[in-house]
């Protein structure tokens, strides 16, 4: 969870800066529409990260169950 949080934070803070350097303030172009894109992306990544976390826990549980059956 912590790792995912750092990734999200990193994306939120660092990436816009990088984009701004490469292309003259990319995020502010076309009426700041890329801010919306960024927000949707962040939400998507966050939710997927949480789902991945649940899936990992489930996999562990499945292994546990399998070991018990043997």
């Amino acid at each position: 969870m912590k790792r995912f949080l750092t990734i999200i934070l990193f994306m939120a803070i660092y990436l816009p800066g990088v984009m701004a350097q490469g292309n003259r303030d990319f995020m502010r172009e076309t009426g700041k529409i890329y801010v919306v894109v960024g927000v949707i992306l962040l939400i998507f990544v966050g939710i997927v990260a949480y789902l991945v976390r649940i899936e990992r826990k489930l996999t562990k549980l499945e292994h546990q169950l399998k070991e018990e059956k043997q």
Partner: protein
Amino acid sequence: MWWKSLSVVLIVYTILAGLLPPLKPGITRVAPESAHSGQVIRLQAYGYNSKYTGSDAKDIRFWLEYDSLHALAAQELRVLSDTCLEAVFTLPVRMPGTGQNAYLNAIIDHPKDGVSLLPGALELVQGDSAERVGADWGIGLVQDLHIIKDFTFPYRNVIYESIRNTYFHVPMWFALMFLFVASVINSVRYLRNGELEYDRRAAAYAETGLLFGVLGLVTGMLWANYAWGKPWSNDIKQLMTAVALLVYFAYFILRASFDEPEKGARLAAVYNVFAFASLVPLLYIIPRMFASLHPGATGNPAFGSQDLDNTMRLVFYPAILGWSLLGFWIAGLRIRYQRLEDKVLQIEV
């Protein structure tokens, strides 16, 4: 389950209806940005999403507004392009009110685009040329405006297209609220009958609420970076959200710090109820006492009527419902996982 499909349908609707409709036409700036009274100026107005060539120049009207009563009308008006208008104004010598300078609003009324306004567009400074005779302020000029009714979102200066974030950033906050309420309700139920299932639910709702809280905070920081200039401006609502998240981090630390799970569950449930009660003033009383950059800042924790128009409501309310239902769906998965894990651990013991 029907509500899971509903959440998917609503979120798809939110993304489509939130991204596809255009913004209403607006004025980004006028040039020059300041003038002396008694001057004749040639003013250019730059439009956003506007189609100035779409109708005759004589049908387009352009005013500089001092207040709701006093305004100036443009004398010659030329359409330079779809997004550029040029007009001549003769600025009066005297201000209608007191004060050495004033900020005039620019208002453009277009038969096809409708009306658009830029507040404080032109700074008018009291000039020293008292002998020159300028025009007089018109009284009640701004009327017969064209109000176009279509599916477009309001144009706001500075935030422009990112107004669409209302459907993605703000619902995170609502989902968090609903999930935390569900968590507290389940904590109360747990305290009343000691059924471990309720404790599982309370914990899962709190955890999912935390997820949405973090997402709301992070997306808010991204948006704030481009709307307010920096990701964190110690805005009272940012602080309060951060504290709300701290409460639930503390809740999980408390749960984890007991050897006997039953005892930890009970005390965590007690803390959940107690902390939630102290969150209510945090979220509804404190924000009223401090200034905020968020909309509806003075005296209103939610949106004011000016911040949402009817078109936005058509997307905003479904968005809240859709994202919240998604939150409950995810929390449901978490609960089912926990139920399984508890069962497996029981078999082992």
